[in-house]
């Protein structure tokens, strides 16, 4: 196995036991980027110089450590505090990185260089992560395929004729194509879970507020959730251990205790009650996806989980409510990009951003607010109630991530409504603020598909426990694309 194909866990161990250095690991990733990025277009900015410098520093820190197997050496504690020391991570280009261009995938921010790091970027840097580059995305995170990027579409490493999913398109493509060891994303309506499922990766959308949004360019303030892509569920838990916490710079992060998310990974799922929403199975679900989903349910049952059919009756209104609330907030959040203080002028906004600004401005206008926004907020309350009711009966919910396997580039780009409907199974988790994890569930004609596990707010630990059990039993995640 090449260094750039390692999991975080494997990289940690290799660096610790000095099997390889951070500079070797980083260079392996950079080499892969050089080889494949011109085709796949996963990165908008590659931070070669910064990455090599950070890797060299990481190697110095690693060299000064003496790892006593008994764990009695105090200097060894540094690595405990810096679990990502020397590990290359790619960031969705929506995360503010001090001194590194941050474009949001839009020409409006073609030359915008932030003066500060997003809280999450700071945390990952403090944990020792090496920033390898900034990944492509649908401009402003508007989209489900990555095709709305002003810097060109990203291709799916599994089949270059297909989309990798979006809006976080470059992050999963980069990881899937072995250009980094993990990558970050944002999930507002499914933008982590959907592309993770299209690229055979684990994608985590944490509880709203679990991870600070500070410094991550806002799409929808009430829905944005900051998460990541990893090769395994364990890696996902390792990253959340670093990123989750109340932040003084984000008033929407509550003081709920942060758990040790790797603790329950091997606990198994015997007796855990899992709800399967009947509404999800009937909604124009692709046959392959349905078959795979049914197989997955059997696998889980064999692992000792108890399956129960549940109902989330307001699911069908999810997309409608989402496409009122989301453009409304988008229209307000994009108002600061006026080209006066930074960035380029508003004429540089692309079609999708303009569409959402217009929609949102309209629904918030006097005389329409009650009919649209207020009503959508009422639906949102009903969706939250749906989940509350269900979580009194079951521990977690299982559902396909996307109703269809990955689609071809260009297939939906001229039909926005069709594109919007690909989020039908994911948006409700955002509206309810609950966490979800997407894990590989098999393949359809050689293209990956995934399922999501949803839980009550702040139940990430349980999601990792279930995801890990399923992953270890099925090993879908171990399959690699032919690059």
């Amino acid at each position, binding site marked *: 196995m090449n260094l750039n194909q390692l999991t975080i866990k494997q990289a940690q161990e290799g660096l610790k036991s000095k099997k390889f250095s951070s500079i070797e690991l980083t260079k392996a990733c950079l080499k892969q980027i050089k080889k494949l990025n011109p085709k796949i277009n996963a990165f908008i900015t590659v931070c070669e110089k910064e990455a090599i410098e950070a890797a060299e520093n990481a190697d110095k820190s690693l060299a000064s450590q003496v790892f006593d197997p008994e764990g009695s050496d105090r200097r060894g504690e540094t690595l405990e505090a810096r679990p990502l020391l020397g590990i290359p991570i790619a960031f969705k280009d929506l995360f503010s990185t001090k001194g590194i261009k941050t474009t949001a995938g839009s020409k409006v921010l073609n030359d915008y260089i932030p003066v500060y790091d997003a809280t999450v970027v700071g945390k990952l840097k403090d944990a020792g992560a090496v920033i390898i580059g900034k990944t492509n995305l649908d401009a402003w995170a508007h989209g489900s395929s990555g095709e709305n990027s002003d810097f060109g579409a990203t291709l799916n490493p599994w089949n270059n004729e297909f989309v990798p999913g979006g809006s976080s398109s470059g992050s999963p493509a980069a990881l899937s194509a072995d250009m980094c060891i993990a990558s970050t994303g944002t999930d507002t309506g499914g933008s982590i879970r959907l592309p993770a499922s299209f690229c055979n990766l684990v994608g985590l959308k944490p509880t709203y507020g679990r991870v600070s949004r500070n410094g991550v360019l806002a799409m929808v303030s009430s829905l944005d959730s900051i998460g990541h892509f990893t090769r395994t569920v364990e890696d996902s838990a390792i990253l959340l251990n670093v990123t989750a916490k109340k932040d003084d710079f984000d008033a929407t992060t509550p003081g709920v205790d942060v758990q040790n998310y790797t603790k329950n990974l091997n606990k198994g799922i015997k007796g855990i009650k899992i709800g399967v929403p009947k509404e999800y199975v009937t909604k124009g679900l692709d046959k392959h996806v349905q078959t795979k989903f049914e197989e997955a349910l059997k696998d889980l049952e064999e692992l000792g989980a108890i399956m129960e059919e549940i109902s989330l009756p307001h699911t069908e209104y999810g997309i409608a409510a989402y496409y009122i609330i989301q453009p409304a907030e988008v229209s*307000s959040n994009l108002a600061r990009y006026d080209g006066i203080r930074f960035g380029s002028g508003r004429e540089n906004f692309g079609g999708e951003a303009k569409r959402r600004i217009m929609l949102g401005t309209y629904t918030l206008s006097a005389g329409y607010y009650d009919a649209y926004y207020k009503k959508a907020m009422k639906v949102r309350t009903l969706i939250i109630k749906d989940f509350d009711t269900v979580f009194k009966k079951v521990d977690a919910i299982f559902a396909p991530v996307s109703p269809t396997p990955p689609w071809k580039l260009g297939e939906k780009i001229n039909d926005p409504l069709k594109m919007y409907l690909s989020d039908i199974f994911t948006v409700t988790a955002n509206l309810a603020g609950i966490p979800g994890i997407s894990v590989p569930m098999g393949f359809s004609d050689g293209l990956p598909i995934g399922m999501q596990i949803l839980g009550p707010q702040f139940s990430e630990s349980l999601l990792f426990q279930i995801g890990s059990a399923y992953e270890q039993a099925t090993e879908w995640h171990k399959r690699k694309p032919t690059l």
Partner: protein
Amino acid sequence: MIYKPVIGLEVHVELKTKSKMFCGCSADYFGKKPNTHTCPVCLGLPGALPVPNKKAIEWCVMIGLALNCNIPLFSKFDRKNYFYPDLPKGYQISQYDQPFCQKGFIELSKEKKIGITRVHMEEDTGKLLHQGDSTLIDFNRSGVPLVEIVTEPDFESAIEVVEYLKKLQQIVRYLGVSDADMEKGGMRLEPNISLRESNTTNTTNKQILPIYKVEVKNINSFRFVEKAIAYETERQKEILESGKTPIQETRGWDEVKNRTVSQRIKEESMDYRYFPEADIPPIRWVESQISNLKSQIPELPDAKSNRFKNELSLSIYDSDILTKDKETADYFEEAVKVGKAHDINPKQIANMLINKKINIKNVLPGHLIQSILTSTQTTAIDENELKKIVKEILEKNPKAVSDYKNGKIQVIGFLIGQVKQTFKQPLDTDQLKKAIEKFINTH
């Protein structure tokens, strides 16, 4: 036709918190080098989030409590969306339908109550500086906490408006939450003015509001608010008398030309597209928090003035002067305490403070009492010596004496002056006056 003004007020008061409303930058912006009190939050940089200033919210609630408002247990922030270069986010964080404080009042003299519709919290904008052809922006003021106090259209004259404004200014200063300094923009006034026919009241004796109103902006002194109201009253009266209705609009006060000028008519009025600010969770109070804030409110000017009048036997005039600002009132009370031990009564202290225009910053209350004591002691002079001089002076001025006897009693002032000039020691005027009267009456 007789017309009566119908006036409502919106007042913005800048709070003097250490830091800004939603970030850690210093809120003390006045006269500072441009753009030195800024950060990603108050510059509206991508990704930056507002974190509300707890102190500012508490102070807003305290203002509401001091204005007899209800404090709803649930409140939230909203976004007011509009474009202007001094507004970096493209929206102002304000409060729309659920402000911190609702339905209060301020009582003016003659028991007239002015209803307070609402008191809410928002953030200030940056400042545009026009230099020749270019315009620069200073964001030091961006995000400074502002409290907006909105009244019912209860005012019927500029006199009432000014009395209200002075009271409001006095209250926020007493609370110690704002300097409300008009010159520095710490207090900004926006009256809305219309006229109604003086006989338009309905059966419940409630006035019927006119169908239009004119809002006047850019007023930065109490004097200008009086002038603007007078100007508008005349302007609107002329229009009404010609059989037309003034248009609903926003006008600005032009302090050079002493007139209001049209800025924006109703048809062009903004649609601010208010919606809840998702970056800040709603505020939920429990009763004990509100009562705790209530307990932090000091004795307010009206109550203090009444107490001075009733308990310290001062005149209304003296009580009002002494309670004008909290520092003077506190000083006076301290002096009363010290004076008590020396048999100096509050009235004497009040006279001293008001008539002698004592600078309380330079004279300690103890010293003030000392000087009152000295001045009373100086009156305990040799009675015979005084008599001798009075006699001397009166004999020198027979004309004045006869004038006095003929009823021209004000001439005594002249005589007092003459005696004072001759007598080298300070004299108590009352005592001297009595001595002169006695001499004239017995001779």
